[in-house]
């Protein structure tokens, strides 16, 4: 290992990056703009569900019941509909997601102390939204039932409304949200978006950087030079890792300053984990670059290996513990999974070394492993 030669390769690579103006700018613009876009746009809140009401009873009580939906912030009331026939095409066309049907004799049944049926039709194309909508409907319905019961009790036992309401709800649940008291979507998303971006961009930059030399043929200069394999890889990869670390800092500032996500953890611990993670993802880029010959293939392979796994399996949307067995196994093989725990721990939970030390160790092993594989596979004497 000769420091001078490493520095020379590094300098050459750095110049090449900086001189490709568009590439250099994009290397910083892409991550930053992703952060902005996803930070503002990636909301899993289910609100403003467009709905219509089909009131076949049309009595004061049925209108009261329908009003519970119209007034809710979870639903966006689009209008009354005279028949299901007219509402159905709107459901097919995504103009409506939910239709509430109140059949006739609704009021009659309630006054007589019987069970009145209502029906909701929910658009099930997006299961998560359907599930959540069902939850809202159940909550509104439960509230209505409780008030009915309280009214009966108040009348029969001669209690006040308030006392009756308390009496019909003997058990109450108090919920406390830990780590994210107001359950803000952006607080939990911003750190994880950081993880996703740092999973996608470093391999892209790295793989393209190396494969470009292969495709243009300039790599033969390297093959013919006195630079050894480790010197070449170190010199070649360091500039990309540095860019990614800078990006990490920018993203961190965005998360904390712009989105107001709390950072409760230890800065040193977080920086160390982040640098290890960036080194890991740069290593993924290295391996891809060894495997492919063309830049097109490098891009496609990077996209497939990084985007879907980082978004789907590493706990951004659903935590690893609630995945199926196959997905859990896939998750456990990804460095991103471990880094997710680190970002969440550092940002929201404020935990550090004592609980997360093993994650750092795993990231370190990954970094060493990925680079060893890349080192073994990279050859200065290619067979073709």
């Amino acid at each position, binding site marked *: 290992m000769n420091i001078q030669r490493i520095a020379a390769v590094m300098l050459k690579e750095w110049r090449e990056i900086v001189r*490709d103006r568009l590439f250099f700018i*994009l290397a910083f*613009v892409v991550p930053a703009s992703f952060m902005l*876009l*996803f930070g503002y*746009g990636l909301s*899993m*809140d289910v609100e*403003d569900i467009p709905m219509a009401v089909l009131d076949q009873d049309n009595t004061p009580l049925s209108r009261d019941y329908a009003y519970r939906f119209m007034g809710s912030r979870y639903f966006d009331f689009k209008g009354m509909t005279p028949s299901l026939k007219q509402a159905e095409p709107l459901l*097919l*066309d995504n103009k409506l997601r939910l239709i509430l049907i109140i059949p006739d004799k609704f009021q009659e049944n309630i006054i007589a*102390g019987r069970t*009145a*049926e*209502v029906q909701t039709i929910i658009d*099930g*194309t997006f*299961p*998560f939204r359907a*599930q*959540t909508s069902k*939850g809202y409907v159940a*909550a509104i319905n*439960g509230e*209505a*039932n409780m008030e*009915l*019961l309280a009214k*009966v009790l108040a009348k*029969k036992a001669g209690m006040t409304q308030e006392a009756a309401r308390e*009496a*019909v709800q*003997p058990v*109450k649940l*108090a*919920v*406390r949200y*830990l780590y994210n008291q107001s*359950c803000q979507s952006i*607080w939990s998303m911003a750190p994880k978006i950081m993880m996703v971006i740092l999973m996608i961009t470093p391999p*892209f930059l790295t793989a393209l950087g190396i494969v*470009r030399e292969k495709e243009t043929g300039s790599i033969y200069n390297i093959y013919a030079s006195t630079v050894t394999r480790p010197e070449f890889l170190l010199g070649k990869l360091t500039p990309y890792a540095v860019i990614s670390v800078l990006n990490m800092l920018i993203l961190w500032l965005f998360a904390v300053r712009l989105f107001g996500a709390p950072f409760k953890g230890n800065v040193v611990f977080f920086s160390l984990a982040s640098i290890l993670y960036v080194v890991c993802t740069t290593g993924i880029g290295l391996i891809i670059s060894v*495997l492919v010959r*063309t*830049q*097109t*293939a*490098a*891009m496609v392979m*990077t*996209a*497939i290996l990084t985007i*879907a796994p980082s978004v*789907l399996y590493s706990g951004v*949307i659903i935590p690893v513990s*609630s*995945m*199926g067995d*196959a997905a859990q196994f896939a998750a456990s093989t990804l460095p991103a999974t471990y880094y997710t725990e680190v970002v969440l721990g550092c940002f929201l*939970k404020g935990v550090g070394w004592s609980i997360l030390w093993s994650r750092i160790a795993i990231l370190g092993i990954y970094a060493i492993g990925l680079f060893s594989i890349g080192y073994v596979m990279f050859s200065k004497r290619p067979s073709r």
Partner: protein
Amino acid sequence: MKKETSAAFIWLQRHAAMIRKELVQLLRDKLLVFFLIYAFSMDIILAGGSISLDLKNASLWVRDLDHKVESRELMQRFQPPAFRLKGGVDNAHEIQTMMDKGEAMATLDFGPGFSENIHKGRQATTLMQVDATNSVLGTLAASHASHIVFQFSLEKAQERLAKAGAASGGTPSIRDAHRVWFNPNQRDSWFMSITELLTIITVFAVMLPATAMVREKERGTVEQLLVSPLSTWQIMLPKILSMTFVILLGTAVSLFCVIRPIFHTPIRGSLPLFFGVTALYVFTTSGLSLFISTLARNLAQVGLLTILVLAPMLFLSGAWTPPEAMPGWLRFAMVVSPLHHYIDTGFGILLKGAGMEILWDSVGMIALIGGIMLSVGAWRFRRQFH
């Protein structure tokens, strides 16, 4: 007359030759072919098979200081699939550590007087602590839990009323029967497999023509094309057509070999319509790809520009997140995105069985936005040669 037919013949022949050249070139890139196959098969299997946005097996620990029938009865109602009752804890400190480590998703706390309160007619409270680092699951867990407790509470209230004799003559209630259309059991695999297919179609539509073009620039073969008797249209159109053909082929493979047989996703609408709309979508979205190819000078730039264009398109299309919840200005951005309309159409045809009479506006939007993209792309593409 004779001259005109032969001109048309030559025009067709040149296109055919160029399309053949593009396909051969694509097929020779073995790895690219491998990833095309992977994306249209394995990737969809993985996405459809394992991703679900539901609360599953949330590990629940209980701190029960009451040890009575009521507290036990209530905690036993926290059952899979949503919750998994893991066991009991004794002190608050232990709970904190488990939450920090991520071993507990939620804890339930029963104070000493819990059942006594119920018996004496006072309101009894149980406290649930939820890990909200994932805000979606935090809210889901809370909503599931309040539903369980609410039901329990209602039953206790009815018992109490019956005992007091107040319930004579029956109590009124409202029962809600919900029907979920299009996906009655809310199978995530139906949703995810189609979403992933539409996503992959978009990825390749934006990526392939641009890489095919810029590769020619990078290798210098574009000079050969320019000195050949081909017009810019004859260079451009075959690239788009051949890539559209490849993507449609992949779509057919994944629909008939993956999505239908493996996930049993029903295909309710007209298949010719779906393929027609897909062809229109891919063909017009290529305009975006052409545009990228005019900006970039090498493939590395294509790569970065592609993800710069693709990521927002995918994330803001309503494919992965409910579109209704987006802020106003992003909802506007969504209307401009062709993918948003394509997803509406794709789900409309495949899952909902809707036809043109309902989807005409979305298809119209695809044609309109795509037409604009294609014209701008083609204009830039032609201009770069002059």
